[in-house]
C-alpha cells in the first residue's frame, strides 16, 4: 500500500511541476470552449436574430419591383437601402463601400415578365378546365419568359449563409409570382380582383412546421452550441494529455529512472498504474470543470446553458473509458517516441488530426463518405459519438454499444503494443 501511495505522490508531484502540461490540459480547453461557443452562437444569431444589410437597385418599370422590396422588408431579415441610381457596373463596388453583405438588382422588365408568365399560366389553366378554347390563345403566349434578378454578395459571406439568404429571397419572389398568377386567373374569369375572403385565406399560412429534436425519453434536450462544444472540446483537451504524460514517460525512460525501477520487482507496474490513476483523476477533473462552467458560468456570459444528460451512469462510464483511451494512447506514444520533442510533436499533431477527422471541429456527417469512414479510426470520433448520444439525444445504453466496444478495443490495442515494447526493452 505504501508503494502505491509513494508512486501516486510522485506522479502528482511530477504533474504539478509540469506547468505547460497543466496549462494545456486545463486552461486551453476553457479558452477553446468559450471562444468556439461564442463564435458559433454569434454566427447563429447573425442569421437568425440580426438583420442582414442589403442594398437594392430597382430598375423595374412596373410595380412588382417595389412589391418585392416591401415584402423583403416585411420579412424582417433585412435592413434595406434602396439606391436606384446605381447601375450594374458600380453595384458591386458600392456593396462593399456601404458595408452591405448582399445586394440585388431588380431588372427593368421584372413586372412585365412576371405579368406575361402569369397570363400564360392562366391561359393554360383555363384551357385545361375547358373554360376557353385553345384556339383563342395566341401562339406567342404559349412559351414562358425567363428573367434574371442579379444577386451580389460580400466574399466573406460563407456559402451556407449565402444559400440561406438566397432561399429567403426566392421564397418572396415565388409568393409574388403565385399571387400575380391568381390575380390573372381571376381577371381572365371576369373578376375585377381576387375576392376578399380568398385574398384573406391566401394571406394565411395554414401549414406550420413544429420543430423538435429527435431524442429518447420524455425530456426534450434542445441542441445548442454549448451542448455541441463543451463535450467536444473537453475530449480534445483530455487527449492533449499526450504532451504531459507521453513526455513524462519518455523522460523517465531516457533519464534511467525506468532502469532503476527494473531492479525493483512490482515497482514498474506500480509506476504504470499510478500514472493511470492520476491521469484518470486529471481527466475527470477536466470534464467536471468544463461541464460546471457550461452549466453555471455560460448563462451569465449570455451563452446557452449546458444541460446534463439524464443517464448519469452512462456519462460516467463513457467519461472513464474516454480518459482511459487517452491515457493508453499517451503511454503508447511515450514508450515508442525516441525523444520528448518527438512525443510532444507527434502526439499533438496526431490528436489534432484525430479531432479533425473524428468530428470534433465539424460534424462527421457533413464530411464526404470516405472521410467519414477514415474518421472511424479516431478514438475521438467514438468518444464524441458517445457524448452526442447522451447530451443531444438522451441516449440509452443500447445506443452506446458501438462506442463502448470501439473504446475497449482501442484501449486494448494501445496497451498491447505498449506491453510489447516494454517487454522488448526488458522493463517488464
Amino acid at each position, binding site marked *: 500500500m*505504501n*508503494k502505491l*501511495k*509513494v*508512486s501516486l*505522490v*510522485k506522479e502528482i*508531484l*511530477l504533474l504539478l*511541476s*509540469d506547468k505547460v502540461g497543466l496549462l494545456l490540459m486545463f486552461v486551453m480547453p476553457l479558452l477553446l470552449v468559450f471562444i468556439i461557443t461564442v463564435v458559433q452562437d454569434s454566427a447563429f444569431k447573425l442569421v437568425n436574430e440580426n438583420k442582414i444589410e442589403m442594398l437594392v437597385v430597382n430598375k423595374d418599370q412596373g410595380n412588382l419591383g417595389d412589391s418585392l422590396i416591401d415584402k423583403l422588408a416585411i420579412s424582417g431579415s433585412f435592413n434595406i437601402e434602396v439606391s436606384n441610381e446605381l447601375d450594374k457596373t458600380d453595384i458591386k463596388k458600392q456593396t462593399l463601400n456601404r458595408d452591405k453583405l448582399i445586394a440585388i438588382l431588380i431588372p427593368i422588365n421584372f413586372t412585365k415578365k412576371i405579368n406575361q408568365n402569369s397570363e400564360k399560366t392562366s391561359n393554360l389553366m383555363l384551357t385545361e378546365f375547358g373554360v376557353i378554347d385553345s384556339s383563342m390563345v395566341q401562339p406567342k403566349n404559349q412559351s414562358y419568359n425567363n428573367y434574371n434578378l442579379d444577386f451580389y454578395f460580400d466574399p466573406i459571406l460563407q456559402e451556407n449563409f449565402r444559400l440561406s439568404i438566397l432561399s429567403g429571397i426566392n421564397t418572396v419572389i415565388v409568393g409574388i409570382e403565385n399571387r400575380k398568377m391568381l390575380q390573372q386567373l381571376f381577371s381572365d374569369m371576369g373578376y375585377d380582383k381576387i375576392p376578399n375572403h380568398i385574398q384573406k385565406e391566401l394571406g394565411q399560412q395554414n401549414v406550420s412546421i413544429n420543430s423538435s429534436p429527435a431524442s429518447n425519453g420524455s425530456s426534450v434536450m434542445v441542441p445548442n452550441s454549448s451542448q455541441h462544444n463543451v463535450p467536444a472540446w473537453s475530449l480534445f483537451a483530455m487527449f492533449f494529455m499526450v504532451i504531459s504524460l507521453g513526455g513524462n514517460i519518455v523522460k*523517465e525512460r531516457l*533519464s*534511467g*529512472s525506468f*532502469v*532503476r*525501477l*527494473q*531492479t*525493483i*520487482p512490482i*515497482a514498474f507496474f*506500480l509506476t504504470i498504474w499510478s500514472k493511470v490513476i492520476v491521469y484518470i483523476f486529471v481527466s475527470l477533473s477536466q470534464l467536471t470543470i468544463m461541464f460546471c462552467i457550461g452549466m453555471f458560468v455560460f448563462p451569465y456570459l449570455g451563452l446557452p446553458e449546458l444541460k446534463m444528460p439524464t443517464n448519469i451512469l452512462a456519462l460516467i462510464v463513457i467519461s472513464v473509458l474516454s480518459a482511459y483511451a487517452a491515457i493508453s494512447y499517451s503511454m503508447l506514444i511515450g514508450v515508442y517516441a525516441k525523444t520528448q520533442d518527438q512525443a510532444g510533436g507527434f502526439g499533438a499533431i496526431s490528436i489534432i488530426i484525430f479531432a479533425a477527422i473524428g468530428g470534433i471541429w465539424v460534424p462527421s456527417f457533413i464530411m464526404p463518405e470516405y472521410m467519414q469512414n477514415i474518421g472511424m479510426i479516431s478514438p475521438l470520433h467514438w468518444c464524441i459519438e458517445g457524448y452526442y448520444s447522451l447530451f443531444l439525444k438522451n441516449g440509452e445504453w443500447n445506443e452506446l454499444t458501438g462506442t463502448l466496444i470501439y473504446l475497449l478495443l482501442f484501449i486494448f490495442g494501445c496497451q498491447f503494443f505498449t506491453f510489447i515494447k516494454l517487454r522488448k526493452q*526488458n522493463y517488464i
Partner: protein
Amino acid sequence: MESPIITAVSLTKFYGNSEKPSLDNINLTIYKGEKFGVLGPNGAGKTTLISLFCNIIKSTSGTIEYTFDNQKKNIKEKFNQVGFVPQDFAFYAELTAKQNLYYFGGVYGMSSINVKEQTTHLLEILGLTSVADKKVKSYSGGMKRRLNLAIGLIHSPEIIFLDEPTVGVDIHSKLTIINHLEELNKKGVTIIYTSHHLKEAEDFCSRVALMDNGKVIALDTVAELIKINKAANLEELMINLTGKELRD
C-alpha cells in the same frame, strides 16, 4: 572474506542479431565484503555484466547465483538487499532530493519512518542537506552524482553495484563518494564497481577483473596483477594487456 555472494557461470550475452558476443563465457565469483572492480576499455562488457547481475537484461546463456545467509537465492527474492547506481542520472529532476529519496525508499518497501531517517542520514553524509528541498534540476553535476548514489543506498543494501559512480565530478564530490563507499564496505557491504579512472580503482578496489572484448582477461588483487605482469601501475597494466588501439 571467502564466502561467495555472487557466482557467474558461463555467462554469455548477445545483443539482437549481433554475431559477436558482448559477454563471452564469463566465469566469476565475487565474495562477501569485497570491493570488486570491473575495469576495461569502452565496449569491454562492463556495463553489460553489471546489468546482468542486476537483472536489468537477460543473459543469452549461463547462470548467476546469489548467496544470502548461506542460502542460494534468486535476485528477485532479495532485490531489496541489492543496490544499483547506474551511470545515468536515474532520478526525477523535477522533484527535490528528499522527494526522490522518499519515493525510491517507498518502492523498496521501507516504512515511512525508516525512509525519513535514512534520507536525513544520506543527505548529511553526502553533503546534500542544504539543498534537500531544492529541485534536482538546479543541482551541479557533482550534487546529482551524489544523489544518484544516495538513491542506490536508500534501502541499506548488502551488495551495491556502481556503474561509473564518479564520472564527470570534481575531486571534492569524488572524495565524498569514495569515502562513503569505504565506510559502507567497512560495515560489510559488498561493492561491485566499474570505472575508467584506473588510479581511483587501484586505490579503492580489493580485487579487480580486467575485461576486454567481452572476456575477463585478468582477475586478481591489484597488487598481485601489477606484480605478475611487471607493470608500474594499473594503467600500464591495462595498456599492456589491451593494447593502444582506440576503442569506441
